[in-house]
């Protein structure tokens, strides 16, 4: 870095030697100060950058925290949906009074539809190939096409590509 020479005011009428010494001393001092100034500027810039970065991270975090809050709410609602699924499976459901049955099925459809509106979709069906990215294998069953889903214990839910809850399933055992 090029710096213009420091102008030094002459005091009294000192000899040129004294002046030279003084200049040398001041030059040295200036060098130190320049170094320090750079150090402080660096530190200051770094601090500013740190602050901007911290703010960015904070923004990401709060967006993520919001998502997490939604997911926590969803997890609770999902349990109620599991209750519907448990009620409706098995032969007994077919013997329930039709008006009541349709009413309950409609409430369930309504709940699912409201999740859909928030981008949450349901998955997990018998016969699909087992995929640990989406399905949580709870146990194995002998009958059926090996490696496919034999029973769905609870449905899975995802938002976009993100699996919010894996479907809990039974998988058909592969042939030994």
């Amino acid at each position, binding site marked *: 870095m090029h710096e213009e020479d420091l102008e030094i005011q002459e005091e009294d009428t000192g000899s040129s030697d004294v002046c030279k010494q003084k200049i040398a001393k001041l030059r040295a001092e200036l060098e130190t100060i320049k170094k320090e100034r750079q150090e402080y500027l660096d*530190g200051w810039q770094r*601090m500013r950058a*740190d*602050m901007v*970065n*911290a703010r960015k*991270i904070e923004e990401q975090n709060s967006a*993520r925290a919001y998502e997490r809050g939604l997911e926590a709410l969803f997890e609770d609602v999902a*349990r109620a949906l*599991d*209750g519907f699924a*448990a*009620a409706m499976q*098995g032969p*007994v459901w077919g013997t329930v009074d039709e008006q009541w049955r349709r009413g309950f099925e409609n409430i369930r459809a309504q709940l699912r539809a409201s999740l859909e509106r928030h981008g949450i979709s349901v998955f997990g069906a018998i016969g699909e190939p*087992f995929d*640990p*990215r989406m*399905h*949580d*294998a*709870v*146990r*194995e069953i002998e009958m059926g096409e090996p*490696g496919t889903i034999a029973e769905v*214990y*609870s449905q899975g839910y995802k938002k976009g590509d*993100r*699996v919010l809850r*894996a479907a*809990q399933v*039974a*998988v058909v*055992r*592969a042939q030994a």
Partner: protein
Amino acid sequence: MGKILGIDLGTTNSAMAIVEAGEPRVIENIEGARTTPSVVALSKTAERLVGITARRQSVTNPKNTIYGIKRFMGHRFSEDAVQKDRTLVPYTLSEGGDGGVEVTLNDKKYRPEEISAMILAKLKADAEAKLGEPITEAVITVPAYFNDAQRKATKDAGKIAGLEVRRIINEPTAAALAYGFNRKKEEKIVVFDFGGGTFDISVLEVADDVIEVKSTDGDAHLGGRDIDHKIIQWIIAEFKKESGIDVGKDPLALQRLDEAAEKAKIELSTTTESEINIPFITSGPEGPQHLLLKLTRAKLEELSREFIDRALAITERAMNASPFTVGDINEVVLVGGQTRMPAIIEAVRKYFGKEPNKSINPDEVVAVGAAIQAGILQGDVRDVLLLDVIPLSLGIETMGGVATKLIERNTTIPTSKSQVFSTAADNQTSVEIHVVQGERQMASDNKSLGRFILDGIAPAPRGMPQVEVTFDIDANGILQVKAKDRGTNKEQSIRIEASSGLTEEDVKRMQQDADAHKEEDQRKKDLADARNAAEQLLYTSEKSLKDFEGKVSQDLVQEIKNAVAEVQKVRDGDDVSAIKKATDVLSTALQKISSAQAQNAEQTKQNPDEPRDADFEDRPKQE
């Protein structure tokens, strides 16, 4: 220079964190979770799975799903511990050429280091994806009881995963680092780590920046899962009593029970009662059956008692093995999710006679500590620029002797803050700025730092002049207080050096004083507030009576005058409620003027630049 990743490589779960802008931050994995199951699998299609996906397929592929590999790190196959644990895992263990342990994945043999490396490689890849930069270095934690061979194996695992392991640190040490205890001298610390599947206790001593493990103990098969199982057993028994049906054999019911039990346990950390509600849990001869039970915290504590007692007995053993007594311990740190349980916190508090540290998420505290160690290594935690905080609040005295804080304690300096105040009396031409320091509500109970007078304020009704008061503290703690009259631009200031030579004890005493006098101070403050409000209302009444003279009924004038007399009678007394009552009566009477005048009185326009309603104590009023 790249970032160094802090990794808590756990038996059941692993977590990672980094230091960014001087602060540790936990990094989520690609699935969006803050912890990753320490599980590795080779799927039937020869795909390598790590973490939650590996765990999800484990029942379909038990022989090729490796979990708990940490238990075998750095061990020789012939060791008793290996032979014992070998019978507990579904995958195949065998002896390697050098006498070490090997596990089999799809007919191929791997050393435990290689399995751990697969977990580390996933963490590395996920961190890189989240941070958008390559990660080549790491700090990894290990249990305090790990020997040299186990530590070396962990280091090798890092190397295989493409990470240069800058340091291996003890898990309890990491927890202590997360709380910053390394900065204190001569501290004796206990780390109580009650996780999902293992329990560890360590006694540490900090001396000369080194944290030394004095004793360590634990139970490799004791944890939160034991409590979950106990709850499930209780629910099954209760349900059987009620309905006669045993749901213990029904896999679907068990699955729902498992979730419900864990949820109830977590809920009971913050509530005293939790409802376990599983509708349509099963079908009996009489149709569908529903499970609806209440689990109280007391019941949960009864169910968990044996596990807590076991942990405490081990704690006592570790204390006896250390050179310290319980009374010597300065800090206790809680690690592991199960330590959120109030009964465990209480048991620890009772045993050590002090409040344990639990402010950092106990699932993440070890990873956070590893990141802090990494931060020290990467030079991010620099000591060059130490930012200080002010230990006590700073403010000025306002009307009624109230201390109005401008800068709250624990604010990082340098900083500055301005606030606009006004006068308390009509035609007041000067204000006194009395700078006080402390947490008490009334100025006279705080420390006086200095005072000065700003005069030359143009005569105006009270509340009209705008006096801007600015506090500015530089990095050295030097306080500059400036008062400026916005009307005349006249200003006056004072410079106060440091915190006027307060010692650490002074600060502590002043903070404690504030706590001790909290209620009394609040009463004084309430009284001052009530008096100020009364004062303000008296002023308004006087003005209104003059303004509306002859425009309102004589009855109303008399009513107001009576109310004014009542306020004047009680305002100097100490009865806050009497003052409030009298002011309320007066205020209601005054409102009658406005409703009477509502039709013909013109709405006075609000001054948008109106000053805050905090008023100065008027300077020698009755001179």
